[in-house]
């Protein structure tokens, strides 16, 4: 837990752009909210490898949102069921699922479909919100660490370096 918090601070105080951090967290959120072993999760992981996002925050987001997913599990089922059984969408779904690849991806599963829709929808505002928070943090709070002599006096140099970004 402490390590995860330190990772967040380390990322926040690094040279990386706010979008890299926000995107890492958003990707982590999407992957964490969905059932893990689905082909589109592997595709997202592939994207995470080639996009220059922060991988540490992806992992933090993944673990955090996996816990959230457990709580929201019934909601995902309801969303997925409503969408997949909607009268007006049956032609669309029949057309989509006539391609076996989408059945292989288990998109006809209520949890997979519900969590995919929820996570994709939630990831956009999450990205922008976290982006804003990173900017605000760097603008107002980052300098505070330099002004706290206690951390240095306690000789917690390694933690200090990590937290302040000095160790990079």
């Amino acid at each position, binding site marked *: 837990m402490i390590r995860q918090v330190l990772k967040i601070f380390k990322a926040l105080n690094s040279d990386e*752009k706010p979008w*890299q951090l926000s995107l890492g967290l958003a990707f982590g959120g999407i992957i964490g909210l969905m*059932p893990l072993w689905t082909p589109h999760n592997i595709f997202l*992981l*592939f994207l*995470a*490898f*080639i*996009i*220059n996002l922060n991988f540490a925050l992806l992992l933090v987001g993944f673990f955090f949102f996996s816990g959230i997913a*457990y709580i929201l*599990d*019934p909601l*995902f*089922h*309801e969303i*997925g*069921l409503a969408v*997949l*059984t909607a009268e007006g969408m049956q032609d669309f*779904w*029949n*057309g*989509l*699922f*006539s391609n*076996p*690849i989408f*059945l*292989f991806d*288990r998109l*006809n*599963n*209520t*949890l*997979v479909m*519900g969590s995919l829709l929820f996570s994709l929808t939630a990831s956009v505002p999450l990205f922008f919100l976290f982006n804003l928070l990173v900017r605000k943090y760097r603008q107002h709070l980052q300098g505070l660490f330099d002004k706290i002599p206690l951390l240095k006096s306690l000789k917690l140099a390694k933690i200090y370096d990590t937290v302040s970004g000095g160790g990079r």
Partner: protein
Amino acid sequence: MKIFRWQGVIAFAIIGGAVAVFLIMFLDGIIERGIEENGSQAAKTQIDLASLSTSLLSQAASIEGLEVANPDNNMENILQIEKLSMDVDGAKAVARKIIIDDLQATGIRLNQKRASPAKIIDSEGKTQSTDQESEEAGSLGLPGLGGIDIKSPEEILKSEKLETLEAANKAKETIENLKAKWQEKFETDLNPNSLEETKKKLAKLQEKVKAGGLASIPETVQEFQSLQKEIQDRINRITSIKSEFEKDVQAAKKQLAELKNLPKKDFDRLKKKYSLSMDGGSNALGTLIEGPLKAKLDKAWKAYKMLSPYLDKPGTTAKEDYKYVRGKGADVQFTKALPYPDFLLKHANLSMNLLETDIQGELKDLTDNPKLYGKPAILNFQSGKNEKFDSFNLDLELDKTSNQSKDTLAIDFKGLNLSGIESSGAGKINGGAANLKGQLKITNENELEGSFKAALNSVSLSIPKQDGNELANTIAKSLSSIDRISITIGISGTMESYQLDIQSNLNDIISGAVKKALAGKMEGFESSLMDAIKSKAGGSIAGANGSLSGLLGQNKILEQNESAYGGLLGQAKGGASGLKSPLALPGGLKLPF
């Protein structure tokens, strides 16, 4: 700042490659374990595979040494298949549909002994390793004669309650209670002191008459009248008590009288239950055929019920039917998109070992969703003449394509050589041949309608001798050589409650044997049963009679009191009438006019 880091492709490729190599290397083991674990939990019995190999390129898989344990007997495999090889439709597998175009199964065996006990899978899918009672394995077996026996009267009375005994004990208790009640009542209502007091009062008055003058006559007369009334009241009370007592005595006598008929009633009941009548063939037939057959049918229904849900998924599913399961959700069916069931075995060639003879079979269109696929599953096994039988034909059709399922089993077994068929403890068939033909229809996976006919010719049975069971031994002897046995079995009802209508000439054969065995023996049994009942209940009946005598003895107290008070009343009346006469004088003096 670059948006993409292309070296990530290399990292992903390395990790992806490592995972792919791992999967390719260990895929067979993963699938094997998956089948063993998930299959065992789904079937609620242990499933083992000796080995499994897959070929992704040729889209084929083969399994060796498949064993499915019998859930009711962990030392037996209900199904064993030596080798299974199959061609899978790879394109459909991408859509998570298992479509097997062709399957070859060899070395299919039923009800084989296991090398080691199977784990018991409970309802939650957990495994236990406790041993179960092992049952005898074998596809064919003989019913035993162990259930046919005449118990001795002593043995019967050990396990049976006698109505006579219970009624006699109850009567004795009731009479003892009555005795205690009347004893108490006599002590309070017929107190000897009160009789003595009355006697004294009368004597005192008589003294007064002798000694008194004329002036005291009216007073003495009044006292005599008062004493008379007192005695009369006593007598009335005694009469009332006597009447009440008589009622109780009559009730007790009635209870004892009823006891007289009870030994006969007990005897008739026990005789009906334990004595084999001269027409006992039908009972023996039930023991020989119906019991063992029902046990086997119950097992068959259980297996059928266990398999049915996997072979009859609904064709279409309404929104309400998709049930939420945490962490799993529900798979919504889009049958128009890909009109294939989740599982389909299009064609299979089967080779089954029956009675140590290989017979060939074919299975077509077995699916988990017949309503969607639209064709019934058909299984056929057939074989021509060989050492064991002349011909064998089995047809099974599972038609669940409509809402009303109709499953049909038809069997035609001709010229089955019965020699050598044995069952440990029950005996062995030394010779003979059998024909079996029949059909069973199961509608809506529950309603049964079927009839089977078996004809056994020149049957020679060898049933082990049972010490002390003369009847079973006599029947066994009668079965040692029979020209022809015909058995017709009708099945009707539902799987939960079905009736077997068994007709057979075995009835006559066994009835004859029973008559022979029972001649003279049953008479002895019946008389000794009656004696045993009388002996066991005799003590209690005698006790109850003794109690009644005691109760009747109490009547003497009433009689004595009644007589005593009667005498006193006479004396009192005499005394009073002497005084009331105008010519009478005290002391017996008479006036001279």
